[in-house]
């Protein structure tokens, strides 16, 4: 079965700041990031869609002791996109020391950045979240 959205195509879309996702033909749930089957019903029938780059912070942490290759402190968060899918990425543009529980529920704009690979991984585009000031 051929993938409707490969990792490479998804990576290209992040690089171009266009968010591609998969809408399930069966249950209409969005699977983002892409995988072979619907995260909700397991269907293999998808329609590829461009989706909105807005989301809401569901949780976060400030990494202060980091793995090799990362410079702490930095913020990691999980964000719910408008289509109900969750993404993990970095909140940027605010001081890590200012991060607190008030971040949860706040709106963000989702962009992407290139993370340099290391001995075990290649360069990868990952989501970054910018706070939308109200």
């Amino acid at each position, binding site marked *: 079965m051929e993938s409707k959205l490969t990792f490479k195509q998804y990576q290209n879309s992040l690089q171009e700041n266009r968010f591609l996702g998969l809408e399930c033909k069966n249950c209409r749930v969005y699977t983002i*990031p892409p995988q072979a089957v619907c995260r909700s019903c397991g269907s293999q029938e998808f329609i590829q869609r461009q989706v909105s780059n807005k989301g809401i912070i569901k*949780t976060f*942490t*400030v990494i*202060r002791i980091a793995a*090799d290759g990362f410079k702490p402190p930095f913020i990691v968060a*999980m964000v719910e996109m408008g289509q109900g899918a*969750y993404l*993990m990425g970095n909140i940027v543009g605010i001081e890590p020391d200012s991060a607190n529980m008030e971040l949860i529920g706040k709106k963000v704009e989702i962009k992407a950045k290139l993370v340099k690979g290391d001995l075990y991984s290649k360069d990868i585009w*990952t989501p970054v979240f910018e706070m939308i000031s109200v």
Partner: protein
Amino acid sequence: MRKVAIAEACMTRFGKHEKTSLELFTEIGLTTINRAGLYPRDIQALFLGNCLGGFGEGQAHMAPFVHSAMGLPMSSPAMRFECACATATVAIRNAALLVGAGVYDIVLAGGVEKTTNLSTSLATRTFAMASHAQYETPVGITFPGVFAMAAHMYADKYNIPLIELKKHMAEVAVKNHYYGSKNLKAHFQKEITVNDVLSGIMVADPLQLLDCCPFSDGASAVLITTEEKAKKITKKPIYIAGMGQASAGGLYVQQDITKAMARKTASKQAYLEAGIKPSDIDVCELHDCFTIAEIIAIEALGFFKAGKGYDAATKRHTYIGGKVAINTSGGLKAKGHPIGATGAAQVTEIVEQLRDEAGKRQVEGAKIGFVDTMGGDFGTVCNIILTA
């Protein structure tokens, strides 16, 4: 399926060891076989858990070398299991399934890990390899980070002020260090206070140093056999009454990381097979890699309702004499966490409890014990219910 029993279970002290992984497992494996009054030639298969041998010692494919060092027969296959932190429990479950099915009569299962020879940053990097390598690891998530996000989500979901939740989390660490102080095999055998936890360095907000389990070295082995053989080997065979195992994907798929759905699924299988309910459990070793992890686990295993388990240690519900004795070994938190060995050491603690051999940390009259091991970021959960 035949009834399956544990005839013997042993662990090394957890902590820092100079010996190689191969030496550590060989020693504890032979101790287990010797204590059972058996010989290496009696072992029909070796299921060896190991995660980081490739990074710490440049050793992949460790099982056949351990097999040779232990003097097991060439006809008894040896193989490595890897399910992150749930590794050894999965090895034990598979051994029990094959003994139950009649494929083997006696299997040695367990695991070994050396993590203290890795720098903290390399250990953190290799542990993070158990997160999704394309969608999650590249953002710099660490294991403390995963559980830190779970803690924030828990505080938000149940509307508990973070400062209050953190005090209750600290009480989990206090409890587990208290029991660790009574366990001569524990990595940390020192009691701590809530203040010690709340004054530690921040690892990943809101988790401080003593909210986290240590990197440890150690090995543990369990002898799995039939009811008939176990009764010949020991006066106190321990029986496997039920087992369960479940899998989940990355955190982006799991979404609500306060719920640990794979644990609910795995434990439901185990309870059903054993024909018992959570309130029947006398003693439980569960996966407290972080203080918040114990809170999430006691809820998912059905000991406490969702959102109600956070103050269980504070109210002493999870101490011996409370509602259910949780982590009497000291847990991963104080006993230590050599990832590939952890599940077998949890089984070892429950075996000692059900044999009334746990000394100063004995749960009086314990008859039914529960083992809960979680691999990665809730991706694997394996549960085993044991009875005397």
